[in-house]
């Protein structure tokens, strides 16, 4: 559980606007007084809202010790640890909701993390930037370079996201792992106009995806 310096080095502030944009949608998914675990909870912004608005029993895991101290100073229940280690110590289904807000693509073993999350929680919320957005496709096609934008605000060598995924890829993975998709949200984060929900051609038109998952069950076959 020793702090992994490589991971703490990232400047998370740059993706903070993107990460916080999704908070209202995650808040909607939490039911009052649930046991909620936010993996990679940062300074506890989302946990605090969940605690105040939904009266959840909050818990967080965060690697950065300054961020953890910020959380604890606000009275939040948070453990300083590498979220890829130690989840196996939790008993099965000891949480109602696990939050993986923009963290799944930052870890070495996303599959293991996803499966652990669905073992210790009844439901899991996963959000990630959609690499199949048309602007990214076009940018790559026309300039031959990787995008640096609002949803992916880092250059290739400094990005905490060590993996890239598209909505289709993720849905395919859920199918393979027999993970039930309870609900999903596709969004176009935009600094100029209000964030928009995307209903038509989400894999092409949304910049960010949010999935609410459950273990086992039926696969909702509706990939677009």
């Amino acid at each position, binding site marked *: 559980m020793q702090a992994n310096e490589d991971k703490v080095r990232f400047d998370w502030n740059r993706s903070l606007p993107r990460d916080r944009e999704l908070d209202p949608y995650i808040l909607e998914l939490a039911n009052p007084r649930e046991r909620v675990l936010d993996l990679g909870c940062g300074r506890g912004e989302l946990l605090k809202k969940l605690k105040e608005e939904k009266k959840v029993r909050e818990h967080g895991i965060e690697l950065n*010790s300054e961020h*953890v101290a910020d959380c604890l*100073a606000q009275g939040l229940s948070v453990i300083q*640890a590498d979220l890829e280690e*130690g989840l196996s110590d939790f*008993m099965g289904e000891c949480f109602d909701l696990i939050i993986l807000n923009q963290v799944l693509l930052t870890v070495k073993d996303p599959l293991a993390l996803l499966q652990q999350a669905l073992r210790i929680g009844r439901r899991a919320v996963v959000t990630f930037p959609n690499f199949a957005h048309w602007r990214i496709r076009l940018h790559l096609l026309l300039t031959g370079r990787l995008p640096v934008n609002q949803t992916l605000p880092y250059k290739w060598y400094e990005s905490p996201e060590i993996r890239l995924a598209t909505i289709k890829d993720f849905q395919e993975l859920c199918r393979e792992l027999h993970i039930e998709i309870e609900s999903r949200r596709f969004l176009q984060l935009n600094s100029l106009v209000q964030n928009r929900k995307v209903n038509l051609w989400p894999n092409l038109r949304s910049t960010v995806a949010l999935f609410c998952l459950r273990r086992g069950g039926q696969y909702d076959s509706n990939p677009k």
Partner: protein
Amino acid sequence: MSQPNQIPDSSVGLVETRSVIFRGAEWVLQLESGKTLHPVKVAYETYGRLSPAKDNAVLVCHALSGDAHAAGYHTGAPGEKPGWWELIIGPGKPLDTDRYFVICSNFLGGCKGTTGPADIDPATGRPYGLNFPFYTVRDMVKVQKWLLDHLGVKKLLAVIGGSLGGMQVLQWSISYPDLVLGAIPIAATARMSPQAIAFNEVARQAIMSDPSWNYGLYKPDRQPESGLALARMIAHITYLSENAMLRKFSRRMIDGTERGFKLEADFQVESYLHHQGSTFVKRFDANTYLYITRAMDYFDLHLDYGSLKNAFDPCKSSFLVVSFTSDWLFPPFHSQELVKGLRQAGKNVSYCNIGSDQGHDAFLLPGNRMGEVVSGFLTRLEKEVQLAGK
């Protein structure tokens, strides 16, 4: 008359150490070693007021060389040092005496007012010395519980302590799960490493090889001073970190930069350690040092309960575990093991490995974030109590 000391507003002010003697058939202390002790005197201090609902008490457990005097001043004389945890106890401080009723007692077997090896054995009329029975952290906690009963405190908002104090916190949460709402072990461990036991043993040998020690039969005013001072010097090294020493002393000489070509203290770090040693012998008893370090060595939750998960299974407290990055005596991974055991037992636990280059002693020093972390945790517990009371 000398000018009274300017006591800051952030202090609890003038305080006194009180004591209670537990005497009578129902107060024979059964120790873990199988021996008994009677009577038992306990020295303690309290700060703040117990609320009408009696739900705001915080017990502070001190470390090896601490005492009941955790905050405030005894005389207010110029130059008087405040209690050992003045840093966090007082009005508006993390252990806010405007909100909490703070209790600190000298632990069993100490030499600051609670019955210990330096006290007179009623059976012989002479100091106990090596006739004092061995005691454990569990025994210390048992006596603290007696004190709480005496004070009419039936519930603790929190128990907090660093180092050996943290061991007592852990034992409290295990021995009295219904009493402890929040447990805050700081720079603690479920069991010390062989390295830490080794340092304790060298310290004990330093005391016992001083001829004045005389198998513990020294007179109170004839302590084995050189042995006890040496023990303290060794221990003090383990409380600091390499960086802290570098920052504090570098390689500075006492007299400028010239080598003195002498064996007396020449480097500043040497004179610092000598000072630590010589002031310690004035305030601490050598036999007591032997016993307390043994109590630390013997503390082992794995041995007592089979595993940490088993140890913590009966606990009902919320935990805040705190370690410091540069602590190599009770290193962070020991705290992380506690967190793991607590997680496995399904307990509510928070943990922070606070950045500090101050080593094990960081919990006694300003300049790190321990205070705000503790304050946040206590405030949360307080709110929970208020909500539950509604």
